């Protein structure tokens, strides 16, 4: 038997005293104990909101338009959350779908939602909000002085926009509110600010922006603001009187004034002020108090509306092609002189590449990493005076095409197998980790945008498509 379609009345006129937001995890697909959702739903949240992505793991995901998290892990979390939202008749809001929030990322999650709805006999209305941008349209903003750089990047030129494989704009809460007001029960947003997802329903229901944005920042990493980040997510209650409270979903974890206040430090450049599309959250006057041993109340969060509404852009482009090779050294005669050995390898490789491939050093690039010695910090390593027991030697080659990158790595192969130190009188054999030693990485990507657009309206850069209820 098909269940009745769930109805949600997003009535923005009826005043409410408070709005509760459940965030089950820092990211969709990270996993959470199902018991924490059962407990969270018993606290009667008004919305389930969570993030589906981030730029955290580097430019590949946006550049290639590929998700980071395994489909099976995303599907597992989605199934639990869709069933919980449907049973309670509350909306589910997911942003930055598919890691980078490209259009294909939104469709990837939407495809899983449709399949789960079919399998579970659910019929919630799904909205997709697309955030991807055309370089040609952004050029009009650039030409009219409505596209600005954020530090540390400088002014933009049109060819940088055109070189990007994908460009997304980060939406605020407004497109999500628009989708909910038009009857969406599941909102699958492209790139969005982490906070906009949790902020949408409280702001739609008239909660004050200061505590709403502050609470949304605290919940965005799930259990990170608790004493046990692995125990599951959190529930924030934003109160119309101008404060919010926060508690973990797991009864065994706690929020303390320190764990909540300290979360404003996490991954932020400035721990007191945070820019959103429509203004700036200022928590410099916030106070944190324990209501009991696991719930914290926060007062004094302020929000200043900006004179100009802006959406931040993210863009990535191909920056050459890479081939990787990995060998290892255990012989103390070589590890004891590892810097000399590495310098000898660099010199020999440059000269052999010139001799065989007729490439000068400015026609390709390589990084030789000595893991176990200074592989992580390189020249910033403060403690590289003693000889390492073993060294992993990673060679990463970048060239304008894959064949050239691999050719350079293959020229390096005999050196990474047999190169002695300058004063050894015989050829050692070193420990390759794999056969073949070379791994083609494909295109390498780089982030090239850290800019904002003066948007004509909060929804003008985004396309909202609302589907009819699934046919079950």
């Amino acid at each position: 038997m098909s269940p009745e379609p769930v109805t949600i009345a997003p009535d923005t006129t009826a005043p409410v005293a408070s709005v509760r937001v459940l965030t089950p995890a820092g990211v969709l697909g990270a996993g959470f104990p199902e018991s924490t959702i059962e407990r969270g739903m018993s606290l009667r949240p008004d919305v389930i909101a969570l993030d589906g992505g981030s730029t955290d793991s580097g430019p590949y995901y946006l550049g290639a338009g590929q998700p980071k998290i395994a489909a099976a892990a995303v599907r597992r979390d989605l199934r639990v959350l869709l069933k919980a939202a449907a049973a309670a008749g509350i909306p589910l809001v997911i942003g930055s779908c598919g890691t980078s929030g490209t259009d294909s990322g939104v469709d990837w999650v939407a495809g899983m939602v449709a399949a789960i709805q079919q399998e579970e006999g659910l019929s919630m209305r799904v909205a997709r909000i697309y955030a991807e941008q055309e370089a040609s349209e952004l050029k009009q903003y650039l030409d009219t002085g409505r596209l600005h750089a954020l530090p540390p990047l400088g002014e933009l030129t049109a060819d940088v926009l055109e070189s990007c494989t994908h460009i997304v704009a980060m939406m605020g809460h407004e497109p999500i509110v628009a989708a909910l007001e038009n009857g969406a029960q599941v909102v699958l947003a492209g790139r969005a600010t982490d906070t906009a997802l949790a902020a949408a329903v409280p702001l739609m229901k008239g909660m004050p922006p200061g505590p709403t944005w502050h609470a949304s920042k605290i919940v965005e990493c799930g259990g990170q603001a608790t004493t046990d980040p692995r125990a599951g997510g959190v529930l924030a209650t934003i109160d119309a009187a101008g404060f919010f409270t926060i508690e973990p979903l797991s009864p065994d974890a706690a929020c303390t004034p320190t764990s909540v206040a300290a979360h404003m430090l996490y991954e932020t450049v400035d721990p007191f002020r945070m820019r959103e599309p429509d203004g700036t959250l200022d928590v410099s006057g916030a106070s944190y108090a324990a209501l009991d041993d696991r719930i914290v109340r926060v007062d004094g969060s302020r929000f200043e509306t900006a004179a100009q509404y802006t959406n931040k852009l993210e863009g990535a482009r191909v920056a050459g092609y890479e081939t990787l090779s990995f060998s290892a050294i255990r012989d103390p005669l070589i590890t004891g002189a590892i810097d000399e050995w590495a310098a000898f390898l660099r010199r020999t490789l440059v000269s052999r590449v010139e001799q065989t491939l007729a490439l000068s050093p400015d026609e390709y690039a390589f990084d030789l990493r000595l893991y176990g010695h200074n592989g992580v910090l390189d020249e910033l390593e403060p403690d590289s005076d003693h000889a390492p027991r073993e060294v992993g030697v990673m060679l990463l080659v970048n060239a304008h095409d894959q064949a050239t990158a691999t050719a350079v790595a293959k020229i390096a192969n005999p050196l990474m197998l047999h190169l002695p130190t300058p004063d050894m009188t015989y050829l050692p054999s070193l420990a390759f980790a794999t056969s073949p030693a070379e791994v083609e990485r494909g295109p390498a990507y780089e982030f090239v945008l850290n800019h904002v657009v003066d948007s004509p309206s909060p929804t003008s850069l985004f396309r909202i498509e609302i589907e009819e209820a699934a046919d079950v």
Partner: protein
Amino acid sequence: MSERTLGDLTHEVRSKNAGPFWVTMELFCHDEEAYRIAAEESGLDEQVVGRLYRVDPAQVLIFRIPSLNVVKISFPRPLSQGSLRDRDMHAGQHHVPLALLPAGRGGRGAGSAS
């Protein structure tokens, strides 16, 4: 390495990317006394951080937060995230030079020596 380091004053030192173009790090000090030493401007300032991480001191931001006994430092990433020579994608291991810095006025001396 018997000299007391900034890391010795803390229960955690961490670093992390803050978006693709910035890195941020925090010293979570044991108590007010440890915080007072770590936060001392004669020991740890923009110049010391600039030398330690080879970045322009004018772009270094330092936040001293006595209510949490935390010193937080942010600066633009010298190597863009994911580029050929970026060896720490999440900048999650870059707190170590800071943690190994001698505490108090010694920080300035060690920074100058490098």
